[in-house]
């Protein structure tokens, strides 16, 4: 049991980025985000014995995190609606003189928030530079379907960005 607990701590520490990114994609409210990360951690802890080594641990963690986040998002949709689409802290990552990039990131965030739950997951994995094969393993669709969906989302993204420039 102690060994498992240590593995779990290590796992969470090493892959906390996954939990943070998923939480960021599905929750705009910081309070919700913290709750979601806690719930994802609990579900990972409870599902550890189901992990099979034939898939990468990051793939497995993305599955659990996204499954929890999509359901959690539904549960807390009301609260999210009330908090507005954006959180300022996410955009204070660039220098003040880099306004254009900052604006583009704001637009990207807005764009992601407009997507439906499944497209959000796809966009997140795409931005994380995951291969089509890994995305297909996480989502449970074929790599060619991943490609089709991503190019469609990218098309929409292009339109959004070009509208901004007008």
């Amino acid at each position, binding site marked *: 049991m102690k060994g498992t607990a240590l593995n*779990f701590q290590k796992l969470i520490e090493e892959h906390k980025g996954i939990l943070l990114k998923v939480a960021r994609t599905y929750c705009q409210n910081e309070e919700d985000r913290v709750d979601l990360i806690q719930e994802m951690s609990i579900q990972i*802890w409870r599902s550890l014995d189901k992990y099979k080594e034939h898939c990468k641990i990051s793939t497995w963690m993305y599955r659990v995190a996204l499954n929890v986040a999509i359901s959690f998002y539904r549960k807390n949709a009301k609260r999210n609606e009330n908090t507005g689409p954006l959180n300022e*802290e996410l955009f204070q990552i660039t220098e003040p003189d880099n306004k254009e990039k900052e604006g583009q990131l704001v637009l990207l965030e807005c764009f992601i928030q407009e997507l439906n739950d499944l497209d959000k997951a796809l966009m997140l994995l795409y931005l994380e530079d995951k291969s089509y094969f890994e995305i297909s393993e996480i989502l449970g669709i074929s790599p060619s379907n991943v490609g089709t969906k991503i190019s469609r989302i990218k098309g929409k993204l292009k339109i959004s960005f070009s509208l901004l420039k007008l």
Partner: protein
Amino acid sequence: MKESELKQYWAAANEKLEMSLQISKINTDELNQLKVYHFISEMKAIKLFTLICGISWVGIGSAILSRIFIYQYTYANKFFLFSASIQIALTAIAVIVYLYQIITIYSVDITEPVLKTQEKLSRLRSSTLWIARILLLQLPVWTTFYWNESMLENGSLLLWIIQTLVTLFFTFAALWLFFNIKIENRDKKWFRLIFEGKEWTPLMRAMELSQQIKEYTIEEER
């Protein structure tokens, strides 16, 4: 903007976030004891409770009705007997749907691919619509169970006109709702009016997700 730039910004934003939102050291002993408010465990508790109530209702009701059918049929009020039988039969069907839901809840595995798990969860939540349809189908029998022979013999014409209109109205409403409460109508005003409120939100969301899953699956089959 180039794709690579986009990914760079995303990564940079994540780094910032990672710094601002630290995960505190998790005590696994506490995790074991923690009673989490989780979507699956929450559903399990509510549905198990409803199932127990439903089984008790159907069990006790069936026992009473079968006794009447066997030993007192000749003297029994037929309106009550048949109305109650229809009510119990429909509740029994709803209980079966509940049972299916509980079995599905136990088979949900959140470590499986997202679409597979969400499809299961979505189907599970949407099946609640079936329960609503079946239970609403009982409406007319609640307007007939109290009829009796004395009412037939001594009731005024006005009473029977009102009674017939009420029963016809509830029959029509029950049948109409039975055939029209379906996912395709989720955006209609009357549908949203019936399924408004916090307790129905997961159902409405599940239906939206179900549509998204369908779009993904259609692409898969091409």
